[in-house]
């Protein structure tokens, strides 16, 4: 019989190995899933993980998409990871992403069509503010009334989606759009657009911001006393209070930071790749970023790698959908399985598996 035995010290080697192992097993399980759907598993896996980068037929289109998709994922995940380390569970990044986009777009639409160098920076501020403010709702309810931030932040996603729908069909609807839902095309409004900075690279201001956020998070988490306090609060809340950490301040800080980053991600998306506010503007980056944060082991550098990998599954998934007729939902299942395997294998870094004589139960 198998028994788990707690390691005296968490294994660093397994800490690095588990994400790799989880990805490998997800490929196997995913292959089985694709086979069950009647697709050639090897072709599907290759289509998802290889072709977007190296197949000459698709790579020219797909490669830039990698950064386009990874940018928001990394930006959101870095913020979430800081909170998760502190045991503060913001799972409503999707909502903060939407509100950030709406606030940024509102600035753009208010100035339309006047030029001005200050418009885009103002939008950036508005986007960050929107996400921050939306995240402050669970933060303040948590610190004032001890309300569970998981439920509140998640429920606010649905509220944000309704606001998005109301805006897309109401206030922000394009007056020249013949009554169709959706706003003006912000990406075509020069003073407000978030263009591709280097042709065919996918690099836009959001990606730049994501990398700045990663560096910033690395310093915060590993060099700054605040990062230490975050870690302490997550692992041993009582010890954190003993060390003089004010839990309320940490909640406000972590939720605010992750909210602002999610809001920024939304703003850069609406002014760039998504081009406008529409009913189906949000595509689940806020939720996938949770997977990215865990897959990256809540470590900024890990998150970059995990974000790129997740982006790849998105692009490859679309490709497989287009070329092989693989259902779009299967990529969601694929991502879910990845998280399962990751959580399951995490046991190996904290426990040792022993073959033991069966103890009579």
């Amino acid at each position, binding site marked *: 019989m198998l028994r788990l035995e707690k390691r005296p010290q968490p294994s660093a080697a397994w800490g690095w190995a588990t994400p790799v192992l989880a990805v490998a097993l997800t490929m196997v399980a995913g292959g089985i899933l694709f086979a069950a759907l009647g697709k050639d598993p090897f072709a599907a896996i290759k289509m998802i993980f290889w072709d977007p980068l190296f197949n000459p037929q698709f790579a020219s289109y797909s490669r830039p998409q990698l950064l386009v998709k990874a940018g928001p994922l990394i930006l959101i995940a870095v913020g979430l990871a800081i909170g998760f380390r502190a045991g503060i569970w913001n799972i409503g990044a999707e909502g903060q992403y939407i509100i950030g986009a709406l606030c940024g777009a509102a600035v753009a639409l208010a100035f339309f069509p006047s030029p001005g160098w200050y418009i885009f920076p103002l939008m950036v501020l508005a986007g960050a503010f929107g996400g921050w403010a939306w995240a402050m709702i669970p933060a303040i309810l948590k610190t004032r*009334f001890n309300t569970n931030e998981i*439920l509140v932040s998640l*429920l606010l996603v649905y509220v944000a989606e309704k606001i998005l729908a109301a805006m897309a069909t109401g206030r922000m609807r394009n007056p020249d759009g013949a009554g169709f839902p959706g706003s003006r095309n912000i990406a075509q409004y020069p003073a407000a657009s978030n263009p591709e900075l280097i042709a065919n690279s996918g690099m836009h201001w959001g990606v730049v911001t994501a990398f700045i956020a990663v560096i910033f998070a690395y310093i915060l988490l590993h060099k700054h006393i605040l990062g230490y306090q975050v870690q302490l609060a997550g692992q041993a809340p009582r010890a954190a209070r003993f060390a003089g950490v004010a839990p309320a301040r940490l909640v406000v800080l972590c939720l605010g930071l992750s909210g602002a980053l999610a809001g920024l991600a939304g703003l850069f998306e609406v002014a760039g790749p998504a081009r406008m506010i529409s009913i189906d503007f949000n595509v689940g980056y806020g939720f996938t970023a949770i997977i990215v944060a865990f897959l990256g082991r809540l470590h900024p550098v890990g998150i970059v790698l995990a974000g790129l990998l997740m982006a790849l599954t998105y692009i490859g998934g679309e490709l497989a959908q287009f070329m092989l007729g693989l259902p779009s939902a299967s990529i969601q299942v*694929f991502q879910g399985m990845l998280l*399962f395997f990751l*959580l399951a294998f*995490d046991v190996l870094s904290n426990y040792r598996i022993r073959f033991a004589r069966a103890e009579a139960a």
Partner: protein
Amino acid sequence: MIDLSSINPVVLAAALMVAATPILLAAIGELVVEKAGVLNLGVEGMMITGAVTGFAVAVMTRDPYLGLLAAAVGGATISLIFAVLTQVMMANQVASGLALTLFGLGFSALLGQGFVGVSPPRTPRLDFGWLTELPVIGPILFRHDPMVYVSLILVAAVWYFLNYSRGGRILRAVGENHEAAHALGYNVRRVRILAIAFGGACAGLGGAYLSLIRVPQWTEGMTAGAGWIALALVVFSSWRPWRVVLGAYLFGGIIVLQLNLQAAGFRIPVEYLAMSPYLVTILVLVVMSSGRARKTLAAPGSLGRPFHASG
């Protein structure tokens, strides 16, 4: 134009019970899970899995009851993934619950592809003879499908089980202090896995109630946060079964009322009315978790804490 006269209170009350049943089913299951000391945030994922398996089986067999059964089995099966992760692999419960929800949403979308736009077999309403004919009371209480009554019987059964049976006592003991329960020789892991499976079955039933009876149709992501509302409901109930009924019917009332206001052409845009159930849920959470109310909350002592028997 507002036409409030088009809202019939009797119809409203009857519809309220129907609207409340899915979250009632899911919440009573989660209540048992939490009483055993486990926080499963995957309710939404289990509900939607139940919704699609129930729908698929009902359509294929043309039997709604087989569908409901399949939904319970489906919900319980997928909950076992969570059970293995958290009880065997000692994974973080919050993360595992989220994973279950993310996976369930994708998995259900995949399974449900062939079923979009299909009509499920009708679930007949029960006929209580003369009771059904009673004015006002008849349509409100005695003209429903069997699941409305099943959900209430389930609550009664859970209430009895938790308070008056040995099994319920053990389950509460495990949730209250798992080290002590282990020291007395109770199998903490087994109790918890059983509770998780029960919660999964209930959530599955709740999901299938949505797809087979309330809507009745399959659409992707159709649970639309009902699982999260059910989770909030458990907090609202202070872990007491009958309060879950109260809470569920309260939410049912809000859902039905806002739908009626929409239909009556209330001047607020539809979207703002549609967000009211979520906002009310948040409001209730705030009231329940603040100040004096918190003392009566009595969350199980070991809720969310992992247990690993050493030695």
